């Protein structure tokens, strides 16, 4: 295994004779930022600690109920490995109860004047804003993401989705001209653990705006914010049965997918599970949208604004520990600037702070679960074995307990390497080079996935030409990971089909 630890930037220490007598460091030392230096940042823990019940039942027909299965599973804080609460496991019978409740609620909900539905969505959005800090803290405790991300990204965006769709509720005819939009019916929604509350908002807000009722299953490692959302639904007086939250793992998901009383399945998660769902749904009348994995390309041309492109790389792959379906996990750098980019990236990464997700200064938090850490470790071993050069340039110390992975990147990656082809879903970047725009485009498109891409250049004609020719549902130009409810999100190829957000997102929830 070849690895590069912190690259040295030694310089000749001649000071010249300029009458200056100043202390100067032997080299550019950014490591101080990660602790132990002159200007160490003292811990800045988030002080709000929301009440967490010992156990949570299923939210069916407007109230929390015991699971018929009688089974409960623990929800772990990945930063401490401590059990936070016991979560009900919904059986097939429980899912059936939830679907029945949603079915019974459907006529009244879809028959409500559209502007009244909009009011409920506004109330949800406002209540989420009021409880934003509590939701952010819960999200961080449950999922391991840095508090600054859940506080500044996840929760505000989730609220924004409800506000946005509240506005559409009574304007669907304008959103979808030439049609008379009707709700699809009962929607079964299955969401992943990387953005629990945000993915819930992406699914529930458009469904409710269009007059549907829902049965939603959060991922088994991150149920808490969905259950808190259920409390909000009850609190604002949302009619019973319109939103039902059933917690559980794969079997609960299967029960939703296979339930006859469901009209539409919306799934966000791995491509592997997405394919199973597509097969299960194929012989039925159910509608389906899938938002699956990705191995998105971030392309840096030599004429790009490099320091900003470096920010885009960091944002692209280390945001949320790389647990992002649209993560820019393949970096293509024009050969002429490859060394410069690797050097700048190493410097920038050395200032990343990994650790307690509840610390407001943490840049990279905990890996969501033990299983995911094992997956990432497997890919690191493979990357080393297949001959790429690993750059362990982040010096941040790691806590003793919990699931942690220091962000790193690989150079010398070949397109055939596993780490360049498969989705790692962790803070691991594969760096490759190219020489011409043609080569960049064909390499970027040489992937089973087609979710997102980034293009970095200062040249306007090039940026639009390249963006147009990339097989990706989202292409960010001179930026990365910009999300907005008005902008449709979704993929091509094995990254799924259907769009969420914007007017396009409404289509999936209307007949």
């Amino acid at each position, binding site marked *: 295994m070849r690895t590069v630890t912190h690259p040295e*930037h030694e*310089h*000749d*220490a*001649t*000071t*010249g004779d*300029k*009458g*200056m007598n*100043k*202390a*100067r*460091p032997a080299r*550019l*030392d*950014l*490591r*101080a*930022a990660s602790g132990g*230096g*002159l*200007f*160490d*940042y*003292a*811990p*800045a823990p988030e002080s709000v600690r929301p009440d967490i019940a010992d156990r949570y039942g299923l939210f069916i027909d407007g109230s929390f109920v015991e699971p018929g299965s009688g089974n409960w599973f623990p929800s772990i804080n990945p930063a401490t490995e401590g059990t936070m609460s016991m979560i009900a496991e919904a059986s097939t019978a429980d899912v059936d109860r939830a679907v029945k409740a949603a079915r019974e609620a459907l006529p009244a909900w879809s028959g409500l004047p559209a502007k009244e539905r909009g009011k409920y969505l506004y109330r949800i959005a406002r209540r989420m804003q009021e409880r934003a800090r509590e939701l952010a803290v819960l999200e961080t405790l449950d999922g391991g993401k840095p508090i*600054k991300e859940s506080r*500044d990204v996840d929760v505000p965006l989730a609220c924004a989705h409800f506000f946005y769709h509240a506005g559409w509720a009574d304007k669907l005819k304008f959103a979808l001209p030439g049609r008379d939009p009707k709700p699809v019916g009962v929607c079964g929604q299955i969401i992943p653990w990387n953005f629990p509350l945000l993915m819930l908002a992406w699914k529930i807000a458009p469904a409710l705006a269009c007059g549907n009722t829902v049965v939603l299953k959060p991922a088994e490692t991150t149920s808490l914010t969905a259950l808190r959302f259920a409390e909000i639904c009850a609190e604002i007086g949302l009619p019973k049965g319109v939103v039902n939250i059933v917690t559980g793992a794969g079997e609960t998901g299967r029960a939703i997918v296979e339930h006859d009383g469901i009209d539409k399945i919306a799934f966000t998660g791995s491509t592997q599970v997405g394919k199973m769902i597509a097969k299960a749904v194929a012989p039925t009348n159910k509608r389906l949208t899938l938002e699956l994995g990705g191995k998105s390309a971030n392309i840096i041309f030599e*004429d*790009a*604004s*490099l*320091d*900003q*492109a470096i*920010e*885009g790389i960091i*944002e692209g792959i280390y945001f949320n520990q790389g647990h992002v379906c649209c993560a820019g996990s393949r970096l293509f750098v024009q050969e002429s600037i490859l060394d410069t980019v690797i*050097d700048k990236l190493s410097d920038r990464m050395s*200032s990343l702070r990994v650790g307690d997700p509840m610390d*407001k*200064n943490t840049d990279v938090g905990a890996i969501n679960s033990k299983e995911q850490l094992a997956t990432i470790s497997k890919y690191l071993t493979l990357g080393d074995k297949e001959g790429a050069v690993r750059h362990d340039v982040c010096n941040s110390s790691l806590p003793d307990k919990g699931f942690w992975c220091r962000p790193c990147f690989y150079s010398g990656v070949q397109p055939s390497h596993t780490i360049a082809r498969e989705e790692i879903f962790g803070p691991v970047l594969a760096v490759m080079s190219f020489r011409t725009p043609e080569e960049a485009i064909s390499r970027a498109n040489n992937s089973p996935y087609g979710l997102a891409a980034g293009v970095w250049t*200062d040249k306007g004609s090039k940026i639009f030409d390249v963006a147009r020719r990339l097989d990706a549902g989202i292409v960010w130009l*001179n*930026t990365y990971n910009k999300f907005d409810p008005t902008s449709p999100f979704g993929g091509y190829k094995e990254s799924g089909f259907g769009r969420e957000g914007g007017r396009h997102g409404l289509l999936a929830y209307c007949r």
Partner: protein
Amino acid sequence: MTSTDTQHLPPSSPTVDAVMVDRRAKSFTTRSIKKDSKMAALELAISMIDLTTLEGADSPEKVRSLCVKAKRPWERDEEILGRRLGHVAAVCVYPSMVPHAKEHLAGSGVNVASVATGFPSGQYPLDIRVRDVKQAVADGADEIDMVINRGAFLSGKYGVVAEEIRAVVEACGPAHLKVILETGELVTYDNVRRASDIAISCIREGDFIKTSTGKVSPAATMPVTLVMLEAIRDAYKQTGTMYGMKPAGGIRTGKQAWHYLCMVNETLGEGWLSPDWFRFGASSLLNDVLRSMQKLATGEYAASYDFSDA
């Protein structure tokens, strides 16, 4: 005056994309600095302040009270903090006030900084601007804050800009130089980066580049300062030569100050966290820093009038 517009052009400067610069600069404002780190940052900030008065109404008496404040920023430091605080970095005045400042600051460790070169516009013949510098140095200025020729810069005469900076460097002799880009008049980040590179190519190790005169709005902003810090970092990585940075104008609170310090820390490293390499050009910042210190030490916010004006 020789015009060499096509000569001495700086190496082509990297372009700067506004969206991600703004995003990165904003990220430093979410750094949360607490307790000991905050106290250390505030104390560091005091040591980096160029306490400034640049008014037409300045008088020897005004400068005298500024000097007193510069030497002993807080008369109640021992009472509240239990220790005596250090002095600020420099007192920054117009050239006519240099002799007065020098008189009060001699032997104190506080430098006398003088704006010169026809500050703030710089719209004077070069020989007059150079004489302005020489006179200030002769009167005892330890540091000279010059303005670049923005007219020449904006019309693309980069060679003229560079040549004039070199002339001022020469006129400075032993005095340290700070080159004011007046970024509020350069408008774009690309211009800020290019002007930074031009200035850096002309000055000596230990000299500074500085954002603003404080007479033009906007003055210092975090993204502009970040672009300039990146120019300093790139120069250091290429040549091993260290240059200083001074944001000036608009930095009024202790909180802003530690956001800037976080930015310096994470862009250049802790080697730059000293008044030798980083300064704040400010007049009202000092008292807010003291106020933050009192809050940290006693848990209570003092009224602004509890702190003596300079």
